């Protein structure tokens, strides 16, 4: 065999994640002797800086023209190693990532020989693909220094102010008539005793005063085209007029929806059974002692985890398995507000908090401690036997088995039963169709990686902020929105963005303009052009995502995706079918 290429193959132990199940040394040894492979080695952590430096040195010293790294998922480290290749002077697109962890070691634990054999084959496939790479150059496009913020709750407004402070122009759109979101509807908030409407008013004033921010209410995003750095978005104002804007990035802060209990769930529907929000309105709106429908309130039961931490059952076929995070603190805090209220009016109001686990994490623990000091009684129930709320003699009766009292069943007479309803994903309907942001299992918008890229989405240039990504309290929500600003700022302050060159290419000699590709493309990246005297399809590279719907549909076989060309795929298949010969 003659070596056409000089490829470096690096097999990662992943500190045992791979090497415990795949004999990585054997993989490297085997590949070392194969065609086009100049060198093959293992690294304890290929991603570590020291290993990267060794690979860089070797790429330079041995003048490598291709690179195969067999390690974890490409989702984690494609960009790490592309940057490394760049530093080594190797075209980043001549590097091929082989997922030896998720696709081999993690799924084949227990049979090291077989896993190693498979590992060898998939690395071979990577080498075969790498051998057919050629240098590619990213498409550099200018970015627009404008941002669309979707949602004018606290997270959205705070993001808008921060973006404007960075010198970017910001358009904020709010579906509702009034900005402020949920925060404008709650009064005092724990743990720092801030007043929701005041927080909103202060932000709104800043938004309105900032010359770089334009706020549209009754406004909905109805269409989006373009790409990172340069989107064209259509805003429908008051349901009639359309506004077209050109923005470089989008921050989505559409918030959450409160859980709506099912009829009968913890007595929902009975008079006196209210949500936490309704309770707070009762408490804060009146100027006298707390009454409900004219009756003085003497006993209040709070039921936690309503609509959160659910398990699948007949009543609940699509459970919300997540914890809503804010409600324990908010409910315990409400207990203290109720205590202030009883002190103010010189009345005794008994309060019973029926919980599963009190999740007042971190410093929020102080809120829980204060509620107990303020007289709140906490009773712990088990989801196998949840509290039951019934109507009895014009009052409510809550039956609960307190697990801390040897499962003794208690019956609590109550004038009000407050359901601490959780946060559920907002049904954004049409907006979801426009934005196309993937969702995670819990139905909230999904970030790329919770720790590595927590505000970015699979849609480049679109960041998520606040509770649209998952339950948060207000401070956390704002922190996440400012994190989204940091990413957006980083994107737009630079003035340009490099787009992936892994896009569709059309062989104009084969193309006969049958229109099929245009129909298949979800990104509107196909255009008809005149090529000599014939009509052919061409790709708008800045719009193409390289996702490949056009490739199989083309009757002329005229389309390939760079980086996933047919010859590369065939070579990979051939290589991975090669019999494994141990080194």
């Amino acid at each position: 065999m003659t070596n056409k290429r000089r490829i470096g193959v690096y097999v990662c132990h992943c500190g045992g994640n791979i090497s415990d199940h795949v004999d990585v040394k054997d993989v490297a040894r085997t590949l070392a002797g194969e065609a086009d492979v100049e060198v093959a080695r293992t690294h304890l952590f290929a991603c570590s800086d020291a290993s990267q430096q060794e690979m860089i040195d070797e790429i330079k010293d041995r003048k490598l023209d291709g690179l195969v790294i067999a390690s974890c998922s490409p989702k984690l480290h494609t960009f790490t190693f592309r940057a490394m290749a760049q530093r080594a002077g190797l075209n980043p697109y001549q590097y091929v990532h082989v997922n030896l962890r998720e696709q081999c070691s993690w799924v084949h634990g227990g049979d090291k020989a077989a896993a190693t054999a498979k590992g060898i084959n998939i690395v071979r496939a990577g080498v075969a693909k790498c051998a057919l790479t050629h240098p590619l150059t990213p498409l550099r496009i200018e970015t627009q220094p404008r941002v669309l913020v979707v949602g004018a709750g606290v997270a959205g407004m705070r993001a808008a102010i921060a973006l404007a402070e960075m010198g970017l122009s910001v358009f904020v759109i709010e579906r509702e008539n009034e900005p402020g979101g949920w925060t404008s509807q709650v009064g005092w908030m724990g743990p720092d005793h801030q007043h929701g409407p005041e927080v909103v008013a202060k932000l709104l004033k800043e938004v309105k005063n900032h010359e770089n921010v334009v706020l549209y209410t009754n406004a909905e995003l109805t269409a989006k085209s373009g790409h990172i750095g340069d989107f064209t978005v259509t805003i429908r104002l008051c349901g009639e007029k359309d506004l077209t804007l050109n923005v470089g990035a989008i921050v989505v802060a559409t918030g959450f929806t409160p859980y709506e209990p099912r009829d009968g769930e913890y007595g929902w529907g009975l008079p006196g059974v209210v949500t936490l929000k309704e309770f707070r309105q009762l408490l804060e709106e009146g100027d006298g002692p707390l009454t409900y429908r004219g009756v003085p309130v003497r006993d209040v039961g709070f039921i936690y985890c309503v609509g959160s931490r659910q398990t699948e059952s007949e009543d609940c076929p699509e459970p919300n398995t997540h914890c809503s995070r804010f409600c324990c603190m908010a409910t315990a805090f409400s207990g203290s507000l109720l205590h202030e209220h009883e002190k103010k009016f010189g009345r005794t109001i008994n309060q019973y908090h029926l919980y599963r686990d009190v999740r007042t994490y971190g410093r929020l623990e102080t809120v829980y401690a204060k509620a107990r000091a303020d007289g709140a009684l906490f009773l712990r129930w088990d989801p196998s036997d949840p509290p039951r709320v019934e109507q009895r003699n014009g009052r409510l009766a809550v039956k609960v088995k307190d697990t801390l009292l040897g499962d003794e069943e208690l019956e609590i007479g109550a004038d009000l039963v407050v359901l601490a309803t959780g946060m559920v994903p907002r049904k954004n309907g049409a907006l979801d169709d426009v934005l196309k942001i993937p969702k995670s299992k819990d139905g909230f918008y999904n970030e790329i990686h919770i720790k590595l890229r927590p505000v970015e989405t699979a849609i480049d240039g679109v960041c998520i902020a606040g509770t649209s990504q998952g339950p948060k309290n207000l401070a956390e929500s704002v922190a996440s929105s400012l994190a989204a600003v940091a990413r957006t700022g980083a994107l737009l302050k630079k003035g340009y963005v490099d787009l992936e060159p892994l896009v569709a290419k059309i062989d104009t000699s084969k193309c006969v303009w049958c229109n099929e590709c245009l129909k298949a493309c979800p990104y509107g990246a196909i255009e008809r052009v005149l090529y000599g005297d014939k009509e052919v399809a061409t790709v708008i590279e800045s719009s193409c995502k390289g996702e490949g719907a056009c490739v199989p549909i083309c009757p002329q076989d005229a389309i390939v995706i760079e980086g996933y060309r047919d010859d590369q795929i065939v070579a990979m298949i051939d290589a991975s079918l090669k019999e494994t010969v141990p080194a």
Partner: protein
Amino acid sequence: MLKPDADGRLLDYDVMVVGAGVAGMETAASMGDMGYRVLLVDKNASVGGRAILLSKVFPTLDCASCIVTPKMASVSHHPNVQLMTYSEVDAIARNSDGSFAVELHKKASFVDFDACTGCGKCEEICTVAIPDEYNYGLVTRRAAHIAFPQAVPKKAVIQRRGEAPCTFTCPANVKASGYVSLVRAGRYKEAFALHLENAPLVGSLARACYAPCESDCTRGEKEGTVHIRAIKRFMVDRYYAEHPEPEYGPVENQLETRVAIVGSGPAGLSAAFYLARLGHQVTIFEAEREAGGMLRTAIPAYRLPKDVVDRDIKNVTALGVEIRTGHRVTSLPELKRQGFDAVLITTGASDENSLDIEGRDLDGVVGCMQFLHDVNVGKLPDVKNKTVMVIGGGNSAMDPARAAIRMGAGRVIINYRRGRQEMPAHDWEIRGAEEEGVELMLMSTPKRFIGKDGKLVAVECISMVLGAPDESGRRRPVPIEGSEKTVPADVAVLAIGLAPSTTDFPAEMKNGKGLLVANPQTLQTADPDVFACGDCVTAPTMIINAVAQGRRAAFYIDRRLKGEPLDVPFDGVLDKTGKAAVLEEAKRFVERRPVPQPALPPDERRKTFECYEKAMSEAEARQEAQRCMNCAECSQCMECVSVCAPKCIDFAQKPTPLSLNVGAVVVSTGFKILDPATKELLGYGRFPDVISGPQMDRLLAPTRPYNAVLRPSDGKEPERIAIILCVGSRDETVCNPLCCRIGCMYAIKQAQLAMGALPMAEITIYMIDVRAFGKGYNEFYEQAKDMGIEFVKGKVARIEQLANGNLALHYEDMLGEGGRKIREHDLVVLTVGFLPNTDVFSLYKGGELAADDFGYVREVDPISEPARTNVDGLFVAGTTIGVMDIPDTVLHSGAAATQAAAYLERSGGRQ
């Protein structure tokens, strides 16, 4: 393009980020991405903070490395981020224009980072093991080390806390810590070579040095000082037995310059050694018939056998040094005429002080030096069955007394004018003498010597009482009139002090006490080509002082001969390591009792001049060496220097201070881990199988210390693991009412990982509430329950160890029937709480950086203005405001980056 600040200076960076954990790295990278120039400072050798030390991370069970290494690489390669590791910020002050003046320093790593390749050779050979903070003390690391396999930058650092007390205290700075650690490692030849760097008379010192190192040994505060001299004795005996001749000859690069040394005592021999190593032509003139000075003539053979002195002298003569014995120098000009370019006088102090009382000239009244000289050269005085009275209470009184015993004296009395407490001799010398039968006659002084036929027959003594203190602070003895008594004696040895042996030199070279006058730094006399050192300059002192002076004199004579200025310091010695910190860390060390010094019993000793101290065996010496507490961490054994190919180790490196101006500051200095031993009843520190949560993470990490999940006490795979939540969190008894926020989740993660690693193990989590509140966390908790991990609601009150080594947990079971219960486990993990890192508050000098009620940095408005502190322009990122998980930290750091960017835009602080 730099923008001058108010004082016309330029901004060095747009922002400085302090602390390169997840928060600092994220903030720095974010701001770098936005185009700001960032300085990222961390006091540790690597970035990565605490997260890089984790096993996997919840709830996705990604490797911690997979999460953290990309961030580490990104800050290390970011074109806009300048990384400064192993550096500490000393002060931050706000300038009037809103920028910040920053003082910081790069710590001395003793490694040139630019040259270090991270090869790890120094770590492999390093002889000092210290508890590895990166493994939370589960195992040890080396003093020369790379923090951990994924370190960024991957550079070695040599950890030196200062000079070890032993090395610092030694007048010659002999690297006692170094040769002790080499002996511990079994590298005796290297230990000997290291000793030669500071003192060539290794054998003599191993026997006769008063070992000031031992009196300053930190182990002395515990079970008793490390017997450093005995370790040296083993080492040098072994070396000399294997190497009867030195392994070297004269150095290759011989110079023309000639140096004359007058006197071949320890000072002269040492100076000759170092001068000859530098290539100078050295001649020693010795008046006695044999070289060695006091080593030869004063110290009795039972302390220092003369063949050892001979072998020590070979170390010097092998370099080409000529010793002319029997040659007394009486004229310095004559030496110059002979062509010597420099002269060093080391004539010592062996002239005797006289006692001016009646009968001084009687036969039988002798000076101590004379007596010992005769003993040592074989002219044994006849004391058989006679009574010998030695007058004096110093070490020099012990030698003739004990020698007399060995020569068969019938009675030996030491007559001293103060009490036992006041005797200047070492206690062990006095005890040794007493054991051998020497009598102490205290609070007594001779009034006259009584003779018969010119020969001494008795001494009239008078009793003393201690009066008022004299100028030295010691109480002056006053005779009690009328208390005279007569003690029969045949020989009286006067050991009442020595005078400098300088009678051959002109008066203008001496002071009133007869000592030669030399510059204490350079040892140069008024004649620039004549130097003087040792006892003739300092008055009588220890051998090791003379050795130290000899090396010092050689250093400056060499400079003089090379025409180099003499106003340079001699030795770069660091400050002495404080013992308090060492002792604090040592609280958890096992007790190590001293290895007994092998010695002849007193009855045997009386009969022989044979050395009564015996050498330790190899095993004993190495065991004794194990007792060294590595006070300074690095022992300066120099092994790393010998293997470092790029020659990047530099023990002379000093901290580098820096003053910078930056536009804004972000502090991300993180948190501290509560010491689990605070919860005493849970047994951490007492029972080895009670470990902390961070330690459990290390056991589970890919780079885990034992490469398996094993319990520390016996390496057994645990079968019944308990994880106890809220240890020191939500706990007023340790003044930490806060929930630690991440304990529940990291415990569940550890439980899941342990279940994977040990499929047969039962795992129980003792909890108050399970706080699984983040995205995917509750699902992760449910998954743990489905996997069979047991959750017990109840607090563990105390842990006791059972006879079988397992641990009994006493806890309250709060569910079901409830009640107090006891359950047996074989590994217990304490999910410890966290404390604020309050170091951050001392950094800001422009006023007060506000703290919250719990000691974390306070955000002025946590809802609308996350990351903003009370100091405009100084922001806070991550766990510095309170512990949080990695996702929350990353978000908060993004917010900090945004806030700092907005501040820079507002203040125009951007470059």
